[in-house]
């Protein structure tokens, strides 16, 4: 394959018919930087109906072009129509890269269309870098439990497909280009070839406790937690500081907290003003998900790696420190 025949980087715009998923905007902003280095155009691909005011948000991220797809099969997300769409578009336009938000649905079809067109797919990179020498994108991610960072590339095939978790990159729009090339594509996917039928869709009641991605204060507990009962004091502290409880993966493994509260590379990315981590060693897989203004760590092991990421820390027993914080805050309140 001659790589030079494959040009431009694409971002798949995920939406629910009303609003665009934030991850698509984050990706446009980050991939804009890659395109500035590689000389590629940044192209957003949108399928299905979406208000023009929403598309404006994409335009403001500095895209050079938009491929706007209409046709049957895109009203509700389904594996078949979206896999087919990207397989067809990639054959027709030969993009150099396709970025897809690492949502449940993005992770559902991206690897599948990559397999259909026999190209490489990567997931959960925490950093992407353009290498001008090889002209490849370097997808960088923690590996082996965060003990090393691995650089992953797709050196001989195109397009390079990558899914990226929401919150990995920042949404900082660089402004609208004077010229945006907008192309319309009509691709009908036969409805009878969709192999799933939606019987019901239940919106989980919005639980503010589960919305840690947007919380300003996070009390994060790690595997140092002795048992479920010990959790109540952290809940109390969180309440006093107006924050929310989150956790590392072992607490999900131990079935103490929901995976929706797991912070990190394969969980939720958080960007609080204040993060306090109790009994957390500081694996890269976890801290990669933390972008805090103030980072505080409490751990009994003075050599715990987490102290490298913290602004302030206390070496000591997590429960004791938490209790002392609660007492001190109570004393202040009266």
């Amino acid at each position, binding site marked *: 394959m001659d790589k030079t025949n494959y040009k431009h980087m694409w971002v798949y715009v995920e939406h629910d018919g009303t609003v665009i998923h934030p991850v698509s905007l984050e990706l446009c902003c980050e991939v804009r930087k890659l395109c500035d280095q590689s000389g590629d155009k940044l192209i957003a691909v949108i399928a299905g109906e979406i208000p023009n005011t929403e598309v404006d948000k994409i335009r403001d991220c500095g895209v050079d072009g938009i491929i706007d797809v209409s046709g049957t099969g895109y009203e509700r997300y389904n594996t078949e129509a979206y896999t087919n769409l990207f397989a067809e578009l990639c054959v027709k336009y030969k993009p150099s890269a396709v970025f897809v938000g690492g949502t449940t649905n993005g992770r559902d079809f991206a690897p*599948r269309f990559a397999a259909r067109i026999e190209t490489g797919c990567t997931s959960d990179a925490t950093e992407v870098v353009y290498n001008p020498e090889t002209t490849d994108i370097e997808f960088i991610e923690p590996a082996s439990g965060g003990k090393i960072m691995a650089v*992953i590339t797709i050196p001989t095939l195109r397009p390079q497909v990558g899914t990226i978790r929401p919150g990995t990159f920042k949404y900082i729009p660089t402004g609208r280009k004077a010229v945006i090339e907008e192309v319309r594509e009509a691709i009908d996917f036969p409805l009878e070839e969709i192999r799933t039928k939606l019987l019901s869709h239940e919106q989980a009641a919005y639980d503010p406790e589960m919305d840690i991605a947007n919380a300003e204060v996070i009390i994060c507990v790690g595997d140092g937690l002795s048992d479920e009962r010990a959790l109540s004091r952290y809940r109390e502290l969180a309440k006093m500081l107006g924050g929310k409880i989150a956790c590392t993966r072992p607490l999900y493994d131990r079935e103490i907290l929901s995976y929706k509260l797991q912070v990190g590379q394969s969980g939720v990315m958080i960007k609080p003003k204040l993060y306090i981590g109790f009994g957390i060693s500081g694996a890269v897989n976890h801290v990669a998900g933390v972008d805090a203004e103030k980072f505080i760590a409490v751990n009994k092991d003075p050599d715990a790696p987490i*102290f490298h990421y913290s602004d302030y820390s*206390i070496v000591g027993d997590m429960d004791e420190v938490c209790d002392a914080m609660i007492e001190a805050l109570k004393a202040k309140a009266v």
Partner: protein
Amino acid sequence: MLKLLVCIKQVPDVDQMTIDPETGKINRIGVPSILNPLDANAVAAALNVKETYGGEITLITMGPPSAEAVLRECLAVGADHAILVTDRAFGNADTLATSYAIVSAAKQIDHYDLIFCGKETIDGATGQMGAQLAERFDAAQITSACLIHTVDEANGTLVVERELENSTETLEVAMPCLLTMEKTHYPARMPSLKGKMAAKKKVITTMTSADIPDLDCDRIGDSGSPTKVPRTFPPVMPEPGIVIDEGSVTASVAKLLTFIAE
């Protein structure tokens, strides 16, 4: 009769891996290998289907000869057959090449109605295998499936609950279908002594590249893998921040709170 296939992977216990401080390379020696945790849930889901609707469960894994251990472990909880796809030529594969090898091997043995995977592994953790296996089986797919409501063998359909970020959807889907399983409703099964004894005696079908007639050798192993890892490096650790030590927990906490309030 329903034919069920469960894909399982043997993984290193990543929490026990260490880094050689001199070379900066991962030290795998002495690190125990285990069944990928979510694959135990996938096996449990298949057993549930078998117990309710009847059927036959085949396990498949691609890996080194030692991966036989995870096959025996899952035979012990009630799987019927096991396939070990093993050959140096398959090694060093990415998900594209792994899915090609596994599906090529499985197709030699039988045709499957339902295929189960874990949602992701603890080592590669790409979560890509399910969708790529489904593509190569030309099967429907339900990723992040959390509950199988009903299986209608006569109609060739099943009803599955799928977990999304803030909602769940209930879908009717046509077989053949591949499911990647969440652990919620399918806790790992524990083997009985009898199960363990029986598993020891079961014959495991071993397949090498030579056992797959039309295998395209350019699509397996390292050469068939478009994704590469050109280099690794130790994570850059920032300089440590300020450690507060005022002599007592109370005093240290008081100081910490002033920093928080700043």
